[in-house]
C-alpha cells in the first residue's frame, strides 16, 4: 500500500512536469476502485462509467491542488463521490419529469445480470428470495437522497472517515455525521422487516 502511494506520488509529480502518460498509470491503477464506488452510488453501470471518466478528467484538471495531499486514490474517490451526487440529482430530476411508465424496471434501476447472482448454485427458490431482497435493497438505496446515499456508500462500503465524507458533501463534519446516521436509519426502516424475516427463517432452519 505504501509502495503504491509512493509510486502514485511519483506519477503525480511526473504528470505535473508535463508527462501525460504518467497520468495513465494513475487511471489504470485506480479505475476499478472508483467504478465500484460509482456503481454503488448510482445503481447502474452506464452512470457509473460516466462518473469514473469525469472523476479522472477532473482529477487531471485539478492536479495542482493535489500536490500537497497524501493519497491519490482517496482524492480521486472523493472527486468521484462529489460528481456522482450531481449526477444522481440530475437523474432524479429527469426521472421526476418522466412518466412513471418510462422508468427502466419497477425500481428505476437497471438490473445488471451480475447483481442477480447472490451466491454459488442457489436453489431456484432461494435465488428468487435473494433477488426479492436485492430488489428491496436497491429500492431502499434509491429512496435515499443523493447526499445520504453518498454518505452511506463512502462510510460503509468505502470505509471513508467523516471528514472525507464532509468534504465530498461540501458540508460540516457534524452535518456529514448526521447524514450518515439518517441514511442508515432510513435503510433500517425499509429493510429490517425483510432482513429479520430472513434471519428468523435461517435460525429456525426453514430458510429455502
Amino acid at each position, binding site marked *: 500500500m505504501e509502495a503504491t502511494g509512493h509510486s502514485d506520488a511519483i506519477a503525480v509529480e511526473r504528470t505535473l512536469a508535463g508527462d501525460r502518460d504518467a497520468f495513465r498509470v494513475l487511471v489504470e491503477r485506480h479505475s476499478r476502485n472508483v467504478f465500484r464506488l460509482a456503481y454503488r452510488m448510482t445503481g447502474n*453501470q452506464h452512470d457509473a462509467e460516466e462518473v469514473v471518466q469525469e472523476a479522472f*478528467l477532473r482529477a487531471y484538471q485539478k492536479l495542482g491542488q493535489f500536490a*500537497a495531499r497524501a493519497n491519490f486514490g482517496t482524492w480521486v474517490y472523493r472527486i468521484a463521490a462529489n460528481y456522482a451526487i450531481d449526477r444522481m440529482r440530475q437523474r432524479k430530476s429527469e426521472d421526476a419529469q418522466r412518466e412513471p411508465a418510462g422508468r427502466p424496471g419497477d425500481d428505476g434501476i437497471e438490473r445488471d445480470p451480475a447483481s442477480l447472482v447472490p451466491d454459488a448454485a442457489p436453489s431456484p427458490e432461494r435465488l428468487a428470495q435473494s433477488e426479492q431482497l436485492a430488489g428491496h435493497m436497491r429500492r431502499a438505496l434509491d429512496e435515499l437522497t443523493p447526499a445520504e446515499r453518498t454518505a452511506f456508500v463512502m462510510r460503509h462500503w468505502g470505509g471513508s472517515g467523516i471528514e472525507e465524507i464532509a468534504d465530498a458533501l461540501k458540508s460540516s463534519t457534524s452535518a456529514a455525521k448526521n447524514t450518515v446516521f439518517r441514511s442508515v436509519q432510513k435503510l433500517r426502516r425499509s429493510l429490517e422487516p425483510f432482513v429479520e424475516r430472513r434471519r428468523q427463517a435461517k435460525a429456525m432452519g426453514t430458510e429455502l
Partner: protein
Amino acid sequence: MKHPHEEELIAYHGGEILRRDIIADHVTDCPECRAELERIDAVLAALSTMPVPEPGDDYGQRVWQQIGPRLAERRARWLNFGVGGGFAAGWLEPRRWAAVGAIAAVVLLAFLAGRVTKRVTPEAGMADASNVRERVLIMAVGEHLGRSEMVLVELGNAEPANAKQKEVNISSERRRAEDLLEENRLYRRTALEQGDTGLANVLDELERVLLDVAHSPQEVTPAQLDNIRQRIESRGILFKVRVVGEELQQRAESPTPAAKPNGSTKLERNKT
C-alpha cells in the same frame, strides 16, 4: 447508563470512538441493546452482499482510451501558471484558498484603484500585470461562489439533529451567509462596473438568497426550512452559481483571461 440512542449505536457499529468503552460495556450487559445492535448489523451485512459487476482487468485501459484524447480540452489548471507543482500547487491548495478569500476583498479594492503593480505578483512569470490581476479577481470570485454553494448545499441537507428534536439548527449556515454578504456586495459592484451584467445578475440573486438565510432565525421549524429551500430552488440559484463557477474556472485556465470579459463567455453567462 441509559440505553444508548439509535444514533449512538449506529455510530458505535461504524467504529465511532466517542464513548466507545461505555457503550461496549452497556451492550454486553443489556440484551435489549445487544439485540438492537444485531438488527443494525443484520441490515448492514445484507447490504454488503449486494454485488457490483466486475468491469474486467482491462477496465483501466478502457477508461484511459476514453479520457486520454479529452485531456487536452480540459487544460490542466496548473499548466496555465507556467510552472509545476511549486507555486501553482501552493496557490491552489485548498487551505490557502481560505486565505485567498480573506484577502480577496483587499486585493480587489487595490485592483479597482489600479494600485496593483507587478511588484505584488512577481511569481506570475510571463503573464502581464493585467492578466495577473484578472486571475486574482476570477479566483477570488470563484472561491466566494464555492463557499456560497457549500452553505446552500448544507441548507438543502439540513435536518433535526435527532428524531425527537422538531427544530433545525441553521446557526452555522446563517453566520456564514452573513460573512458572505459583504464580499458578495463588493463583487457584484465590481462586476457591474466592469460591464459584466451576467455575473452581476447572478451575484444579485445570490445576495437575496444570502440575505434570506442571514435574516432567518437560528433554529427553524421544518416548514420554515422548506420555505427557505423553496425560495432557493425557485431562483435556481444553486445551478446558476455552479454554471458561473465553472465558467470562471475556464477563464482561470485560459492563457489570456484578460481578453475574455467582453467575449462570448459573458454572453453565455447572461443567459443563465
